[in-house]
């Protein structure tokens, strides 16, 4: 069967698929909007763009700017909010650096590498430099291109920031990992790393989906994968 035939068959099939009847949501939406907003369980939804607008005046003050920029990031990661993500060629294979043994990686990293628990499965370890101090990455589930999950550790006490994350996402959710502040990002966003001179370089760059970021001591952790927030939190809490 040719690709065109297959696509035609799929389109024809669409008409015969039986979805459950769509409920009328208008009354439910109206009722929800009539209620005052409540924070849900342990996390708070941050309407980041509104905050940015509200703080635009404050940002003109240098001392306040530093505090606010830090607040709008976590550890070694800075956030930048953009209307449209930069156009990038997505190769599907992130440049994670050089594969090496844990011992070699530990001799290079200026922080103590936290090794994830064994029940997460086999991993391949990569170290990428720049940024200064490097990014140590555990890759789970096959090759880099088809990785199931990626856990990166990087210096969280470096200023200016090591990593810049450009967001076009709707919401960033604040949560906790073992009591440490964490942020959950959803939707496409672009990631860049700074070089030794502190300049953000367009390479290596990639587009990411769902990411949990948290900070413990002087290390920033970044967990990326096809995970729900609950799954990501469970994994993050096991990395200690």
């Amino acid at each position, binding site marked *: *069967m040719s*690709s065109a035939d*297959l*696509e035609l*068959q*799929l*389109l*024809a*099939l*669409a008409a*015969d*698929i*039986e*979805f*459950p009847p*769509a*409920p*009328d*949501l*208008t009354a*439910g*939406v*109206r009722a*929800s*909007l009539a209620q005052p*907003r409540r924070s849900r369980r342990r996390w708070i*939804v941050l*309407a980041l*763009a*509104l905050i940015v607008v509200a703080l635009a005046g404050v940002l003109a003050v240098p001392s306040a700017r530093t505090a606010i920029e830090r607040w709008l990031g976590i550890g070694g990661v800075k956030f930048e909010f953009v*209307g449209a*993500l930069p156009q*990038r*060629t*997505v190769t*599907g294979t992130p440049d994670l650096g050089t594969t090496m043994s844990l011992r070699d990686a530990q001799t290079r990293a200026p922080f103590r590498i936290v090794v994830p628990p064994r029940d997460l499965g086999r991993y391949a370890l990569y170290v990428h430099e720049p940024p200064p101090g490097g990014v140590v990455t555990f890759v789970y589930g096959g090759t880099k291109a088809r990785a199931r999950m990626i856990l990166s550790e990087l210096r969280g006490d470096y200023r200016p920031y090591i990593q810049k994350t450009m967001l076009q*996402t*709707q*919401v960033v959710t604040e949560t906790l990992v073992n009591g440490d502040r964490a942020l959950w990002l*959803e*939707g*496409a966003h672009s990631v860049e790393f700074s070089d030794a001179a502190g300049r953000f370089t367009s390479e290596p760059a990639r*587009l990411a*989906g*769902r990411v949990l970021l948290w900070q413990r001591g002087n290390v920033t952790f970044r967990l990326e994968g*096809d995970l*729900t*927030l*609950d799954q990501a939190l469970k994994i993050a809490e096991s990395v200690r």
Partner: protein
Amino acid sequence: MRAAAGLAPAAARNRRPPAGVEPAVVGRPLDDADLVARAQRGDAAAYEELVTRYQGIAFRTAYVLAGSAADAEEAAQDGFVKAYRALRRFRTGAPFKPWLLEIVGNEARNRRRSAGRRERLAVRAAAEGPSGGAAPSPEATLVASEQRRQLLDAVEALRDDDRLVISCRYFLELSEEETAAALGIARGTVKSRLSRALERLRAQLGEVAA
């Protein structure tokens, strides 16, 4: 209201309101941009019109992603609520549908069920033959129905990434931009993922036929 659609064009042209009666304003329906602009100014009725317009596709998208009708309803409703509260951030001139589907997609993925607990898509029990032309024989209907079921089974058996991208593009008939938004991935990834998914589906169907 589509009552006017049943009138012959001449009759529609000749309609006149009785003297002394203000004609009702029956213009073109407001487009999404108009409704969004009104909703941004606090017009709840305008937002309800957007909910009515997109609740079907929002629910079906959430259903494909979450794998449960109950979760899909909750995800779609929460998505509309969050979208309303985020309307001020909506970029003027941008299409509303992908923006909404990104929010609903996020909600649905957070409720995603494991493969074992996921409700499967089904082919209508009494799927009719192609419209137009002669009615197919009962045997032909049966064969066509079986082929459709096999194709859907093959899609359902694909790994999640493949199944979702095919479902969004073909079953929900979302554009590349809308698919990227619903799945929370880049547009370029939709293209490459879809191409690989079709390849794997074709291979799978080849194995079934062999």
